[in-house]
């Protein structure tokens, strides 16, 4: 282990540290100046124990505030402090530039410098290529890997040590190896994981209020008021506190939705278990909503869509889940379900009627948003605001549902809904 190298303490946080700050912000981790100053304070006190590992831990606990940001943090940390991008070419270019600039070498600790100078450039490059080839899986760590900051001559290759000491903290996994392991990839917001997370997201739809219902006795309030009132009874009443949100789920099943069945069932059970909605109803459809929706995935018992629209008040929240991907005929033609003989309104008209009746409605799509702008998906997206079925998508959807409906969509939907008079 080379002797630690002391360089300027990062009191002003310049150089590579500022890069780190801006890289984090560029990748969507909104680090506030406040937190940045706290980090400088912590480094000034030596809490990172003069090691990159320590710096990683200290920076992480101060700069991020949610487990969903851990993975991005790891990636940015790796990229910034290795000073090289993940791809091999950039790494090689970077190494060349780095080796050509003797000034850079002055910042390195003597042992590492000696090691690098003892190898010639060609030899170094060969060695590097060899190791890059080995480095197929990035999660192993160890001291032979590029960028692991251990004893490898490449370890600190791109790392510009302008601010903290490297060395020390030997043993165990180094910070870069830890960052590379992407241990927190599962917490990213652009993935949907388990029912618990979905339930937590859905719960944000909840509106607890004391608006409706028979007033009940507020016991604590009454006792407090009475005691302050020198013992003369002062009764406090209040409406019960309850979640006022009513939610209707309409789920597309079968066909192209089969690969997503698992995800949809998680959403379904999350809504039922954790949502605590005042009322929750769910129905199934296949491909597109027509004149009936069904109580189970076998399409036996059902309810007329028109009846459903009449039964529920405008206050209901409607979430449709489906890939919105179908043959254009299924959406546009006025024959209804392909298994139902009667003619009726087109699928698009039915969707528009739902959107028209329930201003608080949205569509969750398990497909990637890059597919949303073509074919039937684009058409449906003009009727319902569409969000990917990921945690971030759920969050966006809930934020959207809390705002009033977009007037342009409103007009479009109203026009479509009236196209076919029932």
């Amino acid at each position, binding site marked *: 282990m080379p002797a630690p190298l002391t360089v300027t303490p990062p009191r002003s946080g310049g150089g590579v540290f500022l890069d780190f700050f801006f890289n984090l912000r560029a990748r969507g981790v909104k680090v506030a100046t*406040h937190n940045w100053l706290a980090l400088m304070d912590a480094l000034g*006190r030596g*809490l990172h*124990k003069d090691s990159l*590992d*320590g710096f990683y831990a200290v920076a992480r606990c101060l700069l991020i505030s949610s487990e969903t940001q851990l993975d991005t943090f790891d990636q940015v940390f790796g990229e910034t402090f290795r000073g090289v991008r993940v791809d091999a070419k950039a790494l090689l270019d970077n190494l060349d530039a780095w080796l050509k600039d003797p000034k850079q070498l002055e910042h390195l600790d003597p042992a590492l410098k000696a090691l690098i100078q003892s190898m010639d450039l060609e030899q170094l490059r060969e060695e590097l290529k060899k190791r890059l080839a080995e480095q197929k899986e990035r999660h192993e760590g160890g001291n032979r890997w590029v960028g692991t900051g251990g004893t490898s001559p490449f370890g600190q290759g791109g790392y510009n040590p302008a601010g903290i000491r490297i060395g020390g903290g030997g043993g165990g996994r180094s910070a870069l190896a830890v960052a590379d392991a992407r241990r927190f990839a599962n917490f990213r917001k652009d993935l949907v994981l388990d*029912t618990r997370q979905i339930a937590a997201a859905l719960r944000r739809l909840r509106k607890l209020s004391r608006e409706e219902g028979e007033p009940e006795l507020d016991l604590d309030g009454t006792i407090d008021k009475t005691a*302050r009132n020198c013992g003369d009874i002062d009764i406090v009443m209040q409406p019960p506190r309850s979640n006022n949100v009513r939610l209707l789920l309409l789920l597309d099943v079968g066909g192209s939705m089969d690969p997503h069945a698992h995800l949809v069932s998680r959403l379904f059970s999350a809504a039922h278990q954790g949502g605590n909605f005042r009322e929750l109803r769910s129905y199934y459809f296949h491909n597109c909503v027509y004149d009936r929706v069904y109580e189970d995935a076998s399409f036996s018992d059902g309810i007329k869509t028109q009846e459903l629209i009449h039964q529920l008040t405008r206050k209901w929240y409607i979430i449709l889940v489906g890939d919105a991907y179908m043959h254009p005929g299924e959406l546009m033609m006025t024959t209804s379900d392909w298994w139902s003989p009667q003619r009726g309104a087109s699928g698009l008209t039915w969707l528009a009627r739902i959107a028209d009746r329930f201003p608080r409605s949205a569509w969750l799509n398990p497909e990637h948003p890059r597919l949303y702008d073509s074919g039937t998906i684009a058409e449906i997206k003009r009727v319902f605001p569409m969000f990917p079925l990921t945690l971030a998508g759920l969050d966006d959807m809930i934020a959207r549902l809390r705002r009033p409906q977009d007037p342009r969509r409103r007009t479009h939907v109203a026009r479509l809904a009236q196209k076919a008079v029932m």
Partner: protein
Amino acid sequence: MPYSDPVQSFTGTPQYIVSDELARSVDVAVALARPLLIKGEPGTGKTLLAHDIAQFYGMPLERWHVKSTTKAVDGLYQYDAVRRLHDSRFGGEDVGDIKRYIDLGPLGRAFKAERRVVVLIDEIDKADLEFPNDLLHELDMMTFIIPETGEEVKAIHRPVVVITSNNEKELPDAFLRRCVFHWIAFPDRELMARIVNVHHPDVEEALISGAIEAFYRLRSVDGLRKPPSTSELIDWISALRHSGMDPAKLLGAGLPYLGTLLKKEQDFETVERHARRGLFSGRR
């Protein structure tokens, strides 16, 4: 901010094994006197951490277990109007002195303490959404005013505040910005072996390593509703010990005492399906 004397770096105690990363987060929270927000899977020792910090630094611990009805002011003080009324009716105490009827809450007591105190605010996500916001000022400035008496309670020593959350609700950004954040990752096998060793120091190596191997294979089963956590592993090893289980047979077809590890009925079925495919028998 002036640099205070360096505080002793946290290393955990023999009863509580911490990762280096968690130790650094604790250091930062203690040194910068910012609240430490701890999240993580159930059963990773979030609540125990506060106890351990208190023990490590030899500080007293104030516990505040948050419930759905808890209000922010409860942690600061409570004015016992009922007791005062009682006294005024039935005599005895001097009811003119309102101070007698003010009881400080955990945070209030920590502010007034002569020495630095660890305050545990447990399961903050159980309370209303406004709860964290209502505490912003108090946690920032470490001071509050009791309107009934006009008294200002100001922290003599900024307490070490440890807040745990089970992620039931999102916490507001303004609150998060003020906290030191740490997610307790699920321990890897190496750390798990150390943790188990603390609880079962005298169990033979083969049983522990066999149990840990089976445990991680079990956790790797996709679709478990409640994957077993550390505490369940420790209970399971106790059960295995008492039954005198032969470690060599542990990875056989069925895991014994599965009920200590799994708590949901569906999980038993899921695991059984995987077991039939040979997840627990032999090498993978």
